């Protein structure tokens, strides 16, 4: 139970700038999920916080206490490593009690805590096994167990589910969400996986190239991405981006390029007046493209040709081409579109995202 503060954290490996002045404040009992593309510095953030890596400049505080020079052992942090890192020469029980033994906890207290954690994670029957006698999912649970017996101030998880198969990952995700309710502690969780980020996080921190791009609730980063990177990174399938200009015709505003012309009602872009004639990027999620004839805005509908259809079970991806503009829409499965056929659609105006073409920053509120 603790707050964590990153203040202007810079991290360089030799001359490579990995983190470029990261500021992040994590409140007590917050579940923060850090997402970002591979190599953007997520693991580095955790390692700096754990004390496994030296900070080039800036400060890290835990509960208001500067920990820059504190060795990992003194930080009261538990970390679940991406590769689990179980001690191969110790049984599950020994793995879990290792940290407590080092801190000279009394035997019965150790026993009690190991038992407690083992029952939360359903490890009771495995306590005397060696790590090599466990399945991937079991190892992963032991790694979590090793962390929770310590009741640390902060938990760090580095892509803990990335090595598991889809079904197990789902189970463990629910498990972790339940643990969080029970443990009442601060969690910093790194992942590639959007679903994990959206379902687990109290706050999502999107990183790219050593910078925090946006930090907010899952709904926030999904509904109001602050820039093109976040918009493209969060959400699956990826948002459509259309480059064009804002045009005014008879008191109405439109987004247009040589292939499409899209009506922009004022509520979707209240600041539109200011940008009239300017270059912008319009973002629209595939789910926000309306194909249903009853819901389409018939006054401003757009028509295109279906290029490819991917059936995904209950939904399908429909790749549409309007002139030279490619647009991906998601529709109900078996919608009776076929490649080459004509399709009419309109945008869900509530969820249109407009970005400045040069700064790539969001401009509609």
């Amino acid at each position, binding site marked *: 139970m603790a707050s964590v503060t990153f203040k202007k954290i810079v991290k360089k490996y030799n001359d490579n700038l990995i983190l470029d002045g990261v500021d992040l404040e994590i409140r007590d009992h917050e579940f923060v999920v850090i997402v970002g593309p591979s190599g953007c510095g997520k693991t580095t953030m955790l390692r700096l916080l754990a004390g496994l890596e030296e900070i080039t400049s800036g400060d890290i505080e835990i509960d208001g206490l500067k920990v820059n020079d504190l060795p990992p052992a003194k930080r009261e942090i538990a970390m679940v490593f991406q590769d689990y890192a179980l*001690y191969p*020469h110790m049984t599950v029980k020994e793995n879990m009690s290792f940290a407590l033994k080092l801190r000279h906890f009394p035997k019965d207290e150790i026993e009690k805590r190991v038992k407690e954690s083992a029952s939360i994670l359903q490890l009771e029957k495995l306590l005397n096994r060696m790590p090599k006698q466990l399945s991937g999912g079991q190892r992963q649970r032991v790694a979590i167990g*090793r962390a929770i017996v310590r009741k640390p101030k902060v938990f760090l998880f580095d892509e803990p589910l990335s090595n598991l198969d889809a079904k197990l990952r789902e189970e463990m995700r629910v498990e972790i969400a339940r643990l969080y309710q029970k443990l009442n502690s601060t969690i910093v969780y790194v992942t590639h996986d959007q679903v994990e980020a959206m379902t687990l996080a109290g706050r999502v921190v999107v990183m790219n190239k050593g910078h925090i791009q946006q930090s907010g609730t899952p709904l926030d980063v999904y509904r109001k991405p602050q820039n093109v990177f976040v918009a493209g990174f969060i959400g699956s399938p990826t948002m459509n981006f259309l480059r064009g200009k804002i045009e005014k015709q008879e008191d109405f505003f439109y987004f247009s390029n040589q292939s499409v012309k899209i009506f922009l009602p004022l509520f979707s872009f209240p600041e539109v007046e200011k940008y009239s004639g300017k270059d912008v990027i319009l973002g629209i999620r595939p789910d926000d493209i309306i194909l249903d004839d009853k819901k389409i805005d018939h006054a401003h509908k757009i028509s295109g040709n279906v290029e490819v259809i991917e059936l995904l079970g209950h939904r399908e991806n429909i790749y549409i081409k309007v002139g030279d503009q490619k647009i991906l829409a998601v529709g109900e499965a078996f919608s009776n579109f076929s490649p080459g056929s004509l399709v009419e659609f309109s945008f869900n105006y509530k969820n249109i995202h407009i970005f400045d073409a040069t700064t790539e920053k969001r401009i509609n509120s």
Partner: protein
Amino acid sequence: MKRETAKQILIHLALISAAIICVYPLSRIFTVSIRPGDRVISTDLALIPDGATFLSYMKLLKETYFLRWLFNSLVITVTTSMIGVSLASTAAYAFSRFNFFGKKSAMIMLLSTQMIPAGMLILPLFLMIMKMNLMNTYLGMIIAYSVSSLPFSIWILKGYYDTIPKSLEEAAMVDGTGYVGAFWRVILPLSAPALSIAFLFNFTSAWNEYLVARVVLFSSKQYTWTLGLFELQGQFITQWGMFAAGSMLVTIPVLLVFLYSSKWLVSGLTLGSVKG
């Protein structure tokens, strides 16, 4: 199924012949050691010769300093091996885990010392040990031996440490150890196979060493068994019976050390620590 059996047979054949090649000379020495004194140099091939006797053993133990030599050898060898392994295990850790100036060249230098023939080192070793006033002492021998096996041990251990994932130590440090604690509680236990190989290497090379001992030790009572046994090669007659008996006896400690350490030689200990 048939292929498996054929493979098994081939493997067994190879192993059996290797075993015979190893054991045969030993069996001859054994035979010689229990022949009666007047017939040591006979062409008889029986494993247990006519009139077999332990007389040579008795004579060896009673009439020479053999037990004393064995004791000297043991003290020197065991101390050497322990010092060698402790120095190598820590040095190798530094080489494996830390970056420091001159690391690469130091590793190569260590390797290149192994290419200098032992004979060439005798004179400098002699001079150094003399200057340190350690001639004819255990300490002189121990120093000479521990440093000579060090490079090899360091290479072996460094290679082994390199295969241990770094995240294990990091986990230990997050769990509450320092660098030393992580080394002691995680790296060392995991390195048991490599440590025992380094120990065996130190042990056998010190146990069987002759040249350096010849130069450093000069009183009969301080001899290691190698010097002692060769003293039995008299100028005019060599006591082959006693020589063989001695040879048999000195294999016993090595055998025991091998048997004991074999349980540590199990590999695959790092299995299951990381990933799935």
